């Protein structure tokens, strides 16, 4: 019994050490992979934020009231309706 012990304990420890070493390597690798992925996500977020800000500005520029006003009046020949041709559909509260 005691002889089996003295033989197997070191072997088991050795195997455990090996397994732990491999696990460390795997964990480290995973960590790097995750960090890279996270970094990529952050970049993507930055890029999207940039784009979002630019699109907002673009929208505001294209939708600027002065521009709409000019296009409506000059290019589309639109007019503001006189008050008496506006019919309120909802009864005044």
């Amino acid at each position, binding site marked *: 019994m005691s002889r089996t012990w003295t033989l197997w304990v070191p072997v088991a420890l050795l195997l455990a050490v090996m397994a732990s070493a491999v696990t460390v390597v795997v964990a480290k690798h995973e960590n790097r992979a995750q960090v*890279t992925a996270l970094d990529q996500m952050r970049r993507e977020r930055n890029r999207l934020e940039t784009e979002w800000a630019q699109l907002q*500005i673009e929208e505001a520029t294209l939708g600027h009231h002065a521009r709409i006003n000019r296009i409506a009046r000059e290019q589309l020949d*639109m007019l503001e309706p*006189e*008050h*008496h041709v506006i019919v*309120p559909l909802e009864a005044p509260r």
Partner: protein
Amino acid sequence: MTKSPLKKRAKASNRTIVPVGPKPVGAWRGRFILIGFAVLAALSVSRAFHLQVIERDFLRSEGDKRQVRNLTIPGHRGAILDRNGEPLALSAPVSSVWVVPDAVLADPESVKRLAEGLGRAPSELQTFLAARKGRQFVYLREQISPHEARRLLDLKVPGVFSESDFARYYPAGEVAAQVVGFAGRDGIGLEGMEKAQEARLSGTAGNRRVIRDRSGRVIEDGGEFTPAVAGESLNLSLDLRVQYLAYRELAAAVAKTEAKGGLVVIANAQTGEILAMAAQPGFNPNNGDARGFAAGIRNRAVVDGFEPGSTIKPLLVAQALELGLYNTQSIIDVTGGTLQVGRLTVRDIARRGEIDLATLLAVSSNVGAAKIALAMGAENVWAGYQRFGLGEPVFSGFPGEALPVLRHFTDWGQIATATASYGYGVSVNALHMVRAYAALANDGMMPQLTLFSDGLRAPPQRAVSPATARQVREMLEQVVAEGGTGKRARVEGYRVAGKSGTARKVAATGGYSANKHQAIFIGMVPVERPRLVGIVMIDEPKGQYYGGQVAAPVFSEVMQGAARLLQIAPDAQPVQPQMIESAALPSSGVTRR
């Protein structure tokens, strides 16, 4: 095999007697080796000591420099939005491209490529760079879109770098420029709301310690992490649609009358939210270089005080009614059109005989107002103005608000009492008048004005009784009726109450100027239950200068549009059907009748 060397030695030993076995070794050799190893060991240990102990910090920092990076995470500045979420100020990332001139000049080919990318002549770029030879940092393009910067970097010209930054954009441009203000290049607010709300808008940059590999990819997150805090976004109470309308009509009126400037403020009568605040002349907040010196930066509606002139009369009448000294049937004799008060002669423009209060307001009789004020006494007049908040600040939260000047009644003589009755000797800003009229509009409850659509608000205060407010409103409707001074303020489909005013400006030489006026109109729509209160003031118009001629039409245009935009139900009697048929319809044919 092993025997043979022995045999040889044996042979040799036959001749000379030499001891058998290995030759004895000198003791010095052993010591030499030992010492040698000791020296080597000492060298190694001392070198290790040197590296590990003495140079440790230096080496570690050098190593970290090559690997560990402190990445700054920018804290965005908050946006400024109108009440519907339309952006008035936004931060967007930009890039600036800079060069090391020597590195670019080293190869003529790269100068040529760079010039092509920039759209500049190679020779011109050559001179530009040569003039800055020896410098380590020269901006090539500042604050351009990141996409554009990427394109320049992709030319792969040595010595060209970029840095990213944030720039502030004002999509509404000149329309809301004075209210929003602007921030400087360092992102700190310099004017307007950008300055007043700096603490809320500004973000705090965070940082992150990471380890990077040679190609710049992050391979390990150090865990040390200060999160970036983005600035809050700010919802103003402005409605950009109404704001644009006010801006457009004001700009047109100022241009038409060749006035020095003007302002428009439109507020929600019940909540006190300011829906539009426009001022002329204006400036473009996106034009970084010129805006710092532009005359239009001043937000006249808040930072300029003026004498309200005749527009103060309804407040006087409200106080007279409130005190019970007069009622709607009271008759005041203004025959002759002049009134002598000490050295002061009060004059009317239109001569009338005996008039009631409504007519007094409709024709804007100074004599009548002065008579009421003198009958009430200085204290009552003063207390009336105090009720309407003319003696206290508006607390609009806008920087540089003009404080009111309403002297204590004990300083008033007869003359001061008489002049105060028609709005001279009292100085307020436009918001004071809007707030006072909002009290009349809101059945006597005076709301506190605000420029924010969220946050805590001071509760409204009672200025006058609901009955008084209603009576004054009905009188003010006569001002806009045929024969009143403000008939050009009429808004089709709505009943309008308002008051025009024309104030002479104080001349630079002292006294009142004979030909410099401020034309004012203040009114509310619709009379029965007013939703909007607005003021229009045109500063130094050329030609016509009466409030009813210059300011009232602007009021009419802005209110007509605002009532439609805000879907305020018309309250005027519907136009007769035959009038609709006879009315000229727009040629584009909106109707299918």
